[in-house]
């Protein structure tokens, strides 16, 4: 999780991902930024991101949601 928070803070230095939640704070990651984020996660965590999850906002509401997805994909 720390590794993910580090990555998110690099990409979005102005956002506090310990508390950020898109449902209350408003959407942050739009489609073009999504590609950037996914590419970085794939490289740093050595996993493959299926494009099917990229359109589902519930996977990207918060750092915790992204982390849950990474754990699931690592297990597959």
């Amino acid at each position: 999780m720390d590794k993910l928070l580090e990555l998110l803070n690099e990409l979005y230095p102005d956002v506090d991902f310990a508390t950020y939640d898109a449902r209350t704070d408003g959407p942050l990651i739009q489609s073009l930024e999504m590609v950037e984020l996914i590419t970085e996660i794939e490289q740093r965590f050595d996993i493959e991101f299926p494009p099917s999850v990229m359109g589902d906002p519930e996977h990207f509401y918060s750092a915790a949601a992204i982390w849950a997805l990474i754990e699931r994909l690592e297990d597959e």
Partner: protein
Amino acid sequence: MTFISPWFLGGLCVLFVLYYTLPKRAQWPLLLLASLGFYALAGWAALAAMLVTVAASYGIAMHMSKLKIAQKAHVAQHRDSMTRDERKAYNAAQKRRQRGWLIAGLLFNFSLLAAVKIGEALARIDIIPSMIFFVGISYYMFRICGYLIDVFWGKIEVQRNPLKLALFTIFFPYAMIGPISRYHNVADALLNEKRIDWALFGRGLQRMIWGFFKVMVVGFRLLLSINHLRATPGEYSGMFAFFTMLVWGAYLYADFSGAIDISIGIAMCFGIRVEENFISPFRARDIFDYWRRWHITMGTWFRDYVFYPLSVAKFMQKWPTRVKIHIATAVTWFTTGIWHGVAWNFIVWGLSNGVVIMISQELKPLYERFNKRFSFTKTKVYTCFAIVRTFLLLTLIRAFDIYFDVPLTFRHFASFITNPQFGAFFRYFGEHEVWFGLAPLEWLVAALGIAVMIAVPWFRKEEKRRPPAIFWAALVLVIFIFGMYGLGFDMQDFFYMQF
């Protein structure tokens, strides 16, 4: 037959009564029968093509699902004896098999779509005789192909009843004009048994009235002027061309979003919520924002099924992220252009959007620094400036679809500078009694209609701020008095029905 036809509206009333009085298990079959009937009126060949598409897609989805079930069972059975790498290799091999079937299904469907689109293009330049009008083919193709991809991705359970799949594909309110619904968003609502929800039924009727107002009072009126302006496009350059582009934007919004309002309203009356397709698009602050507000279901379809898969595809991995984004953006917008028709104007329109998006993306860091440095960028005045700037930019991009003539559109753009004709434009109104095919009084009605359209954008979150019953009664009266149908004009097809 369009939504404006009295036969359609009469049939709809009968259908509402049957839907809520027949046994509830007959509800979805009734909607399917009505949808097939509605589609058959567009032509038997069109109906046959649609049924072939549904049958092929059904077969392929069922087969992919069988492979998936076998794959899961195999992994579960050998969980302990397989290493992680072995499991990964097995899953990858199975995925390839399923992908083969998916590609076959998509190729089959898109070949049919391509044949129709190319046929239309050849008929336009008189190489072949005018062909059968496959009304709404793009819309159902995109719905069914989205369904196939979702089954492949494992996002949804396969639909085992082909008739239920057919209903999802051509549910008549959205069959011909959209929204491009996704299976997981609407399937339950389409197939569930429902009691009448009077509140929802009432909101559905209001939504339909709102749509009829936009289409009949504003859209059809502006269409008369548009037809006049593009009949002799060479005459109207400079300010005249700019005026045409503004009228075109207002017409397209009234016509398309109005038809979508009617679609959504009819579905609500059947107790079915379908996706929104417009959220105040002319309030967008930049082009990204605009495409999150205009024809939303088309934008999200291309984003989820073209842009995302392409941008993370294996063969793209060797490129830097920015290059990947630009390639995926260009391909997505080229495809979006072609989706509208095999014609240069649509391709240039699509690529123009792509180019502006790519440039905006490159300038983003600059904008962010600018916005941080200057506090006036947080004022309402600056927001208004951003809205007007975006509106003008999209007005120019949209202009490619007015004349179906790319060089002419570029000549008109150049004429804004080389021959703006300010004086001639303003003199025109004094020298003529009919302005661009419409009497001044008709322009006044259209302008007031546009003002109402802008002033009443409540269909977002403002459920509590809905206008009172008197507003709806007044709007019905306005439609009867000022609706083009009421004045005896020919019924027009919706512009967006041709796709």
